[in-house]
């Protein structure tokens, strides 16, 4: 080939090559333009979808504290430790390290670390320091998940007041149930970016919606008073061989609940293994026919309506017929002419029936309603029951109910309702709404709950008169409730236990309700013992229990005897 031709041929090939390269470049540029410009938004979105994840940030559940600031319920972190055996570099070394830290058998750990499974749990609910130490190893394959755990440092002490929280973080019963949403707070959200292995990239920008911590609740319950209630109740149940029992203590001037004790109780720390029947707070949900302590309400209505006065006399023959049904005294004995004070002191059913029938059904049930029976008290605790009050006009109400209801039969109440009603007598006739949370505390503010008056159930003068009569009840008949040096107002109640076939002839429910000091009540106490075997009578079981509680309360609350206190 001639040199000219050779040069020309080379030029041609170069041109072809350049053209090919140019086309190639154009294709590449075109593809780049396609991806970078036309497909830009879509691809960016796809990339972000791959990389970005939204994680829930759990909120801290609020604490529940007693009135002195001691925690009844709080959350701590425990660790669930697991492993992906395939990712472990050196199972021998890791087994040694974990055995030291977790105090588990080395061989057992080694066996788990070498299992041919993608994941295996090593320990659940490990203590904080152990979890932190294991996480600090930063060993490949080891997974440490911190988990909030609800703990109750006081154990059984205030189980029914506080309630429980499930594994899923939902509160049930008591304060945990009633204030679940407040305590739980609000979960936060956190946008994170992750690498192809799914691990969070710590340096990536993160958008965060902060979690809101739950509200801390400070209760009106004083753990020392709670302890007194629990100890004395346990002692009483054991001593009098009762099946179960309840003690409720309240500040009658405000409605603040100072203690709620039920026996049997449970340890909320062991919640999943607790018998479900024990979870109910008997003071709120267990209805009982109150028996003679309900006479306080009958006498209050009679006095307030002007139907009777303390000196009104009536002839007691031992029985009285109401609506075709004969009502007997507890001992079937007649006492002749008795005053209303005598009738209350000796707990005469015939006198109670006399009062209710003299008042008439409308007025009697109006007072029953005024004292808050038949409706919930709206206390801030979960699972409260309204009780059962049959009223004239109801299909199941009979004329005889007017007589039996007057001494607490055929009517079902909760211990809290009963104590709340008697507290109204102690509080100059003013019925207060019971409450158990006195302060809501967040990081920003503290909100205090103000006592709330429901209504003036009876006149102030009536309340004072009735208080005087209740003091006589204790000093004359219920002497086992008496505390030397103090005027105590109170009333015993020995109620029969209703069954499907009438009243159980072998069992009673013994109760006592009262308050002290009578002239300036600082606390009201209700004691209820179910089916005591040692004695069926409240005066021998519930009354001494009441006295034991009151004696300790007077010491704890530093209330001097009347002689010294009134001399001041």
């Amino acid at each position, binding site marked *: 080939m001639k040199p000219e031709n050779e040069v020309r041929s080379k030029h041609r090939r170069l041109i072809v090559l350049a053209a090919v390269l140019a086309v190639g470049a154009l294709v590449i540029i075109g593809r780049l333009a396609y991806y970078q410009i036309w497909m830009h938004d879509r691809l960016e979105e796809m990339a972000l979808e791959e990389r970005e994840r939204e994680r829930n940030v759990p909120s801290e559940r609020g604490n529940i504290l007693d009135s002195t600031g*001691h*925690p009844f319920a*709080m*959350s*701590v*972190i425990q660790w669930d430790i697991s492993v992906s055996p395939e990712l472990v570099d050196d199972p021998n070394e890791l087994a040694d390290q974990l055995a030291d830290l977790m105090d588990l058998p080395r061989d057992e750990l080694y066996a788990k670390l070498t299992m041919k499974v993608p994941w295996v749990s090593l320990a659940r609910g490990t*203590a*904080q*320091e152990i979890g*932190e130490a294991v996480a600090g190893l930063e060993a490949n394959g080891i997974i440490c998940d*911190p988990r909030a755990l609800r*703990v109750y*440092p*006081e*154990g059984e*002490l205030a189980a029914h007041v506080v309630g429980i929280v499930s594994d899923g973080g939902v509160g049930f019963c008591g304060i945990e149930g009633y204030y679940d949403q407040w305590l739980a707070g609000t979960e936060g959200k956190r946008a994170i970016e992750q690498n192809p292995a799914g691990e969070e990239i*710590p*340096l990536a920008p993160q958008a965060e919606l902060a979690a809101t911590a739950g509200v801390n609740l400070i209760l009106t319950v004083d*753990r*020392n008073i*709670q*302890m007194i209630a629990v100890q004395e109740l346990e002692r009483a149940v054991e001593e009098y061989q009762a099946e179960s029992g309840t003690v409720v203590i309240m500040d009658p001037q405000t409605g603040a609940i100072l203690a709620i004790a039920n026996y049997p109780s449970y340890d909320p720390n062991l919640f999943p293994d607790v018998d479900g029947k024990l979870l109910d707070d008997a003071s709120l949900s267990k209805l009982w026919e109150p028996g003679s302590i309900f006479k306080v309400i009958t006498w209050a209505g009679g006095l307030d309506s002007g139907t009777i006065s303390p000196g009104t006399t009536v002839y007691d023959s031992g029985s009285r017929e109401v609506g075709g049904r004969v009502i007997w005294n507890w001992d079937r004995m007649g006492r002749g002419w008795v005053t209303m004070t005598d009738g209350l002191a000796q707990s005469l059913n015939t006198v109670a029936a006399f009062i209710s029938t003299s008042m008439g059904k409308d007025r009697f049930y109006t007072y029953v309603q005024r004292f808050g029976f038949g409706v919930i008290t709206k206390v801030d605790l979960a699972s409260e029951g309204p009780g059962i009050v049959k009223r004239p006009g109801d299909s199941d109400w009979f004329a005889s109910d007017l007589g039996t209801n007057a001494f607490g039969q055929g009517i079902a109440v909760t211990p809290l309702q009963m104590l709340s009603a008697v507290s109204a007598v102690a509080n100059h006739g003013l019925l207060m709404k019971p409450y158990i949370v006195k302060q809501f505390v967040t990081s920003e503010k503290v909100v205090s709950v103000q006592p709330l008056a429901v209504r003036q159930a009876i006149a102030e003068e009536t309340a004072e008169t009735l208080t005087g009569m209740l003091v006589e009840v204790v000093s004359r008949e219920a002497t086992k409730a008496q505390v*030397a*040096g103090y005027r105590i107002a109170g009333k015993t109640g020995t109620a029969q236990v209703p069954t499907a076939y009438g009243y159980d002839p072998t069992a009673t429910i013994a109760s006592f309700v009262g308050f002290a000091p009578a002239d300036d009540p600082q606390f009201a106490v209700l004691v209820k013992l179910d089916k005591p075997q040692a004695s069926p009578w409240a005066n021998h079981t519930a009354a001494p229990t009441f006295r034991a509680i009151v004696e*300790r309360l007077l*010491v704890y609350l*530093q209330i*001097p*005897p009347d*002689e*010294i206190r009134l*001399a*001041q």
Partner: protein
Amino acid sequence: MNRKTITKQGPNQTQKATFPVRTALFGGAALLILFAWLQLILALQIASTERQIQITIDELSKLKRDNMALVQDTAIIESEASMTRRAEALGYGLQTPVYLSLGQTYQTTGPAAGGDVLASAGRPAGDLQGGILSQFLLDDTLYETTTAQKGATSPVASPAEGAP
């Protein structure tokens, strides 16, 4: 001459025309490098600070968790049940207070007087035996408290013991 002059002026004119461009290019490049360097330094600092923040947040979380665990431990140690056990182990029991108004004279020297005071408070004098007696004032009232101790000897002479 004229041609030479022109020739000499030509390069001068060219130098004058190209000098700012080259300088600008160098300057631009230098600025670009400077900005890139600054960007790199700042990016590194931001990354480092973010990491530090992350570490601090982790440390704070750990401290919070440790604090929660400590509060729990303290709460358990100070629980009613635990305190009661400890008090009983130390020999303490329930208090039995004796109240006196300030007008009353409390005599700790005679068994008769002490017995009267206790009787007026509604408690048998024997209640104080083996107990620790203490007095304090509150709201203008003299308070007397005894703490029953199992088998302990009272360091303060109680009226029931009839100390001189």
